[in-house]
């Protein structure tokens, strides 16, 4: 019987998406453009996952948002904050360490 990996993948993606968003928001972007940007790079993200996450990051002060009403349709633009950059740097460091540990263990497994 094939095991459904979606719950594991969701769990894994949650943290990854946070880092990804903090990296992506170095420049001003709105939700739909972020989804498209990630899609072109082969990463699919559900809109009803992205928006609540943006809200949580904003509440924690890692990103900020502003409505642009200059066009015929209002768009909400997001950008990373100073605190967001500091957190991003730490998260990337953790992510790199995790990657190194994982690669190291995988190499060890290959030699067994």
């Amino acid at each position: 019987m094939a095991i459904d990996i979606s719950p594991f993948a969701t769990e894994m993606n949650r943290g990854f998406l946070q880092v990804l968003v903090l990296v992506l928001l170095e420049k001003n972007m709105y939700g739909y453009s972020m989804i498209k940007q990630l899609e072109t790079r082969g990463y699919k993200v559900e809109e009803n996952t992205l928006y609540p996450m943006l809200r949580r990051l904003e509440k924690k002060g890692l990103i900020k948002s502003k409505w642009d009403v200059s066009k015929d349709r209002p768009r909400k633009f997001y950008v990373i904050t100073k605190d967001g950059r500091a957190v991003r740097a730490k998260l990337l460091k953790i992510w790199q360490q995790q990657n190194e540990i994982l690669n190291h263990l995988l190499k060890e497994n290959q030699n067994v």
Partner: protein
Amino acid sequence: MSKRLEIYLEEISHYLGISKEKQEITAEIKSHILEKTEQEYGEITDITIERIIETYGSPRQVAEKYMDDYQIIAPTFKGHLLRYTMILFIFHFGLTVISLIFKTSMLIFPFFFIPKIDSLQSLFYLPMTFVFDLGLVGIILYFVTQRGKDIKLPWPKLNLNWQKMASRRLEKPKIILLILMLIGYTALVYVYMRYQTLFFKSLNFKGVESLFNPEASKWYSLALLSFLGIGILAYIVKFFARPEWVNLLRSALQLVILGIVINRPIDNPFLEFIYLDLQITANIIIAIVATLIAIDFLKSLIILGRKSLMKKTFS
């Protein structure tokens, strides 16, 4: 704005409940849906909007994603919810039994008020108190959770070894004990048949003297025989049926008998005006017996509850 989109956003807003941000959230979703519709279909019509909404998710699912980090009761307090409720309910149960026996209402400020009720009413009253206790503990834990601070709530140890308790109560009944019980019971039935009472004021060579008048003698003796008979019958049934259920049923039936005895007193049951405080003594004895049986009843209920919980957890 499309009527369909309006309804969709209204539904999301409904599920978001009292969230202060729901206007902002729905504005964000509206902006995204309109943007996506135009980008993917080139035009915004009811049909194209409908297609995009279908991929966005049901209003409830969408609203829940925004509430992921909102908790009514923190997971660390979920164990407290059951334990505190159980402790509160044991108090409520005990006080209800006492107020039943002494036929009085009781108020222990601020949480306990037990009205003057009879045994039948108590059958309806007790489940209600359980719901009240659960709600009360729930409200307190809600406020503790919402404060968001690291509050360490006391964790009273009930000193109950469930596995030991369950295994002890599941021991097989012993045939010798049953024989002894049957002999004792037969003796009691014999005494009753001969003297029409099981309660004696005095036993001397001239004869026996009953403590109660004939009607009360018959009534209380039969109640005692039924009470003991249920105990013996339950013991016999344990040879064939699951003991935890038998214990539960036995305690319940015995409590009903005590309830009947308390609620149907006979006027002036004593033969003569001898011991004025005998009635109070009798009430105290009944109160102690009823409390012990009530505790037994609760234990059986808890063991059954935990067994079914473990079954569900490990199945």
